[in-house]
C-alpha cells in the first residue's frame, strides 16, 4: 500500500500543453491544447482514491471525482463521462472555466504537499474525448408526458433545466433574447478560452433530444411570463443571468473609446468583431488599453484587446494581487501574454481630447486598510498620489447587475433590493406560482457551475411539481 502511494507521489502533475504566449497573444485559438489519452491516464494515476474524498466537498454539484478519475485511469473514457454527467451537464465547459483552485482542487489532499490532481483538466479531457470520439448515442428518454415547460434564457442554468426535463419526457421550449444560445458562454467568454464550437455542440445535443429553441424573443417585451402560461406552459424557469453592465460613474465615462466589458466582449465574441470586415460589427482597436477590474471578465477583456492588436494592455485594480477574483490560470495566462498589472490603483476620472475621445485616466494610488464586510481589506486612497495613465481605449469590467427587462414586466415576482429574483435556494421556487429561477439572476454574477447546479435543483423541483403540485 505504502509503496503504491509512494509510486503515485513520484508522478508529477501533468501540465497541459499550451500555445506559446508570444504566438497565442495574436490569435483567437484556444490556449490550452488538451490532454492526450496518455497524459490523462498518467494524471489520473496520481489520484489516491481517498476513502473520504475532500475534493467532492469542494464541488458545488458533488461530482464523484475519484469515481470518474478511476475510469480515466483504466482507460474507460465513456464510463468516465457518464459518471460526470450524473451531476454536471456541461463538463466540457466547466473543465475549462471552473475556478478549480477554490473548489475541488483547492481541497485535494495532494495539494498539501505537492500540486493537487488536475481535476479540471481531467474533466475537460473526458468531455472532449466523448465529443470527438464518443458514440454520440443519446441517453434513454422517458415516455412523452405531454407537459410543456418554458425556459427563459439559454445560459448554463437554462440549458441544464432544458436537458434534465427533456429526458423526463416533457416538451421543453427555450426562449432566448439573443440570436444565439449559450448566454455568457457565447457572448462573454472568448473563443481562446472556450471555443464556440463546444457551446454549439451542447446546444445541438439538446436539439437532438427535442428541445425547441426560440431565438430573438425578449421575454418581458416580445412575450411575457403570464402569456407563456396562457399558451399552455405548466412551468416556467427563469435563467436570464446578470445582464446589466456596471459603470464607475466617473466624470468623462461616456466618452468615445470607453466600453463596458459587456459591450466590448459581446462585439468581439457574439458579433465576431475580431473578424471585421468579414463580419460587419466593428470594434475599436486601441493601441494603449486600460481595463478596470481584475475578475475573469477583466482578464478576458484585456486578453481580447491584446489579440485585437494593442501594443500595451494594463489591468487597473484598486485592491492587491491576493484579492483579484479571477481564476489563477487566467491571471497567469494574462501575465505570460504581456499584460501589465497596476494594482492598488483607483481611477478617479477620464480625460479626453476635443473630439470627445478618451486619452487618459487620472488615478489614485491606494493602500489596504481594515477588512470590510466581505472580509477583504478595504483599499483607501493615499493622499497626493494622483497620476495619469495614458490610454486610447478603456474597458470597464467591475461587475454586473440584474437586468430589469423581464422582472419589471412580470407580475407578482418578488425581487431583492438590488433587483435580483427571490428564489428558494433548495428548489429555485420563486414567489410566483409555477415560476422557478436560478443562476446569476438569483445570486448575482457567480460561476457557470453554480448556475448549472441551480438549474439542476430547479429541474428536480419542477419534476416534483408536475407529479404532485406546488
Amino acid at each position: 500500500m505504502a509503496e503504491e502511494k509512494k509510486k503515485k507521489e513520484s508522478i508529477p502533475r501533468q501540465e497541459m500543453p499550451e500555445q506559446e504566449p508570444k504566438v497565442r497573444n495574436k490569435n483567437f485559438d484556444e490556449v490550452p491544447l488538451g490532454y492526450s489519452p496518455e497524459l490523462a491516464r498518467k494524471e489520473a494515476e496520481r489520484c489516491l482514491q481517498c476513502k473520504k474524498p475532500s475534493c467532492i466537498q469542494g464541488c458545488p454539484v458533488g461530482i464523484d471525482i475519484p469515481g470518474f478519475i478511476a475510469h480515466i485511469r483504466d482507460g474507460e473514457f465513456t464510463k468516465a463521462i457518464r459518471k460526470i454527467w450524473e451531476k454536471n451537464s456541461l463538463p466540457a465547459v466547466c473543465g475549462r472555466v471552473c475556478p478549480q483552485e477554490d473548489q475541488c482542487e483547492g481541497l485535494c489532499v495532494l495539494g498539501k504537499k505537492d500540486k493537487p490532481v488536475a481535476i479540471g483538466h481531467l474533466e475537460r479531457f473526458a468531455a472532449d474525448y466523448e465529443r470527438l470520439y464518443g458514440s454520440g448515442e443519446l441517453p434513454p428518454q422517458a415516455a412523452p408526458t405531454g407537459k410543456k415547460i418554458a425556459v427563459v434564457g439559454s445560459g448554463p442554468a437554462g440549458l441544464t433545466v432544458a436537458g434534465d426535463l427533456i429526458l423526463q419526457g416533457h416538451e421543453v421550449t427555450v426562449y432566448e433574447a439573443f440570436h444565439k444560445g449559450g448566454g455568457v458562454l457565447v457572448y462573454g467568454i472568448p473563443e481562446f478560452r472556450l471555443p464556440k464550437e463546444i457551446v454549439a455542440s451542447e446546444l445541438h445535443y439538446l436539439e437532438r433530444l427535442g428541445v425547441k429553441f426560440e431565438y430573438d424573443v425578449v421575454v418581458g417585451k416580445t412575450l411575457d411570463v403570464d402569456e407563456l402560461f396562457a399558451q399552455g406552459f405548466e412551468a416556467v424557469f427563469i435563467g436570464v443571468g446578470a445582464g446589466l453592465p456596471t459603470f464607475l460613474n466617473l466624470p468623462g465615462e461616456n466618452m468615445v473609446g470607453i466600453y463596458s466589458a459587456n459591450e466590448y466582449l459581446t462585439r468581439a465574441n457574439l458579433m465576431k468583431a475580431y473578424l471585421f470586415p468579414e463580419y460587419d460589427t466593428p470594434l475599436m482597436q486601441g493601441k494603449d488599453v486600460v481595463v478596470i477590474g481584475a475578475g475573469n471578465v477583466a482578464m478576458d477583456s484585456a486578453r481580447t484587446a491584446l489579440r485585437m492588436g494593442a501594443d500595451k494592455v494594463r489591468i487597473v485594480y484598486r485592491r492587491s494581487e491576493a484579492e483579484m477574483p479571477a481564476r489563477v490560470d487566467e491571471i497567469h495566462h494574462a501575465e505570460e501574454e504581456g499584460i501589465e498589472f497596476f494594482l492598488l490603483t483607483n481611477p478617479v476620472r477620464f480625460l479626453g481630447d476635443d473630439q470627445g475621445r478618451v486619452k487618459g485616466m487620472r488615478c489614485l494610488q491606494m493602500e489596504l486598510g481594515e477588512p470590510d464586510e466581505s472580509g477583504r481589506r478595504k483599499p483607501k486612497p493615499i493622499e497626493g498620489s494622483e497620476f495619469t495613465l495614458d490610454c486610447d481605449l478603456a474597458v470597464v469590467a467591475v461587475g454586473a447587475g440584474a437586468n430589469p427587462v423581464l422582472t419589471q414586466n412580470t407580475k407578482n415576482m418578488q425581487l431583492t433590493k438590488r433587483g435580483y429574483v427571490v428564489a428558494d435556494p433548495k428548489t429555485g421556487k420563486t414567489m410566483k406560482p409555477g415560476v422557478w429561477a436560478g443562476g446569476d439572476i438569483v445570486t448575482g454574477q457567480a460561476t457557470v457551475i453554480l448556475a448549472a447546479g441551480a438549474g439542476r435543483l430547479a429541474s428536480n423541483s419542477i419534476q416534483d411539481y408536475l407529479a404532485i403540485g406546488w
Partner: protein
Amino acid sequence: MFEILRRELMADESVVLNEISAPLIAEKAQPGQFVILRANETGERIPLTLAETNPTRGTITIIYQVVGKSTALFKSMKVGEKFMDVIGPLGRPTDIEKIDGEVVCVGGGTGVAVLYPITQAFKDAGNNVTSVIGARSKNLVMLEDRMQGASDELHVCTDDGSYGHHGFVTDMLKHALDTKDVRLVVAIGPVPMMKFCCQMTAEYNVKTLVSLNTIMVDGTGMCGSCRITVGKETKFACVDGPEFDGHQVDFNELTSRLQAYCPEEKQAYEKFKCECQSS
C-alpha cells in the same frame, strides 16, 4: 418568419420601405418603439423604428435611409427574402396623451420615418397637430402623404427651396411657436436639427421630446453602447428611451458617440460597394 412582403423605394431611391412578417412583434408594438434587425450570419444588429404595424396581417413596416453598409445590404434584399433576425418591440413607447394646446411635430431627413408613427398617435389621441418636415431638396422629401394624413397642418421645407418653404424646419417651428398655443414639440432628425429645435423651444419654455438614434448592440440594456447623458445622469437609449426631454440631452456627446466608428463604417461600405459591382 421575418420575410419581406413588400418593398418600396422613396426619396429618389435613397429611402426604402419594407413590410416584414413578424406576428409576435406586430401584436405588441406601440408608437415610439423600435426593432433590431440582422440580415444574415455576418451582419450587424441595426435598430430601426416601427413606422407602422399591422397586427391582423402580422406585419411590421420599417423605413430606412441608406447611409452605410448595413442599410445598403437591407436595400439589396428582395420581396420573399428573409431577415435572419428581428427583435422587438424594444424601447419605451411614447407617452401619448391629449394635450391642452397644439402639438408640433418636426422631422428632418429620415427622422420623418421615426416621427410619423408618433405624429399619428398624437393625432389619434385627439390632439391638434401641426407638422413640419424638411429635406435637402424636393426629391428627398419623404412620407409627405402619410404626414399629411397624420397632421391638421403640414409644412414642407427644403434647404434649396426646390419645394415648399425655402429654409430650415426651425423657421417654421418658430412661426408655429409665435402664432399658436404650442404645449409640446416633438423633434426628430439629424443631431444638429434636434439641437437647434431644442435651443429654440427652450427660449419659449415649451416641452420638447427628441428621439435619440444612438449606436446599439443588444437593445435590451445589457451593454451600454447606447448610453447618453441626460440631465446629469447616464441613460440607456434602448431601455430608458429612445425618447428624452430634449432640453436635458447632451447633444455634443451624442454627436461624438455617433462618430465612434467612422473609419470602420467607411471601410465596410466601400468593401460592400466593390463586392456589389464585381458580382
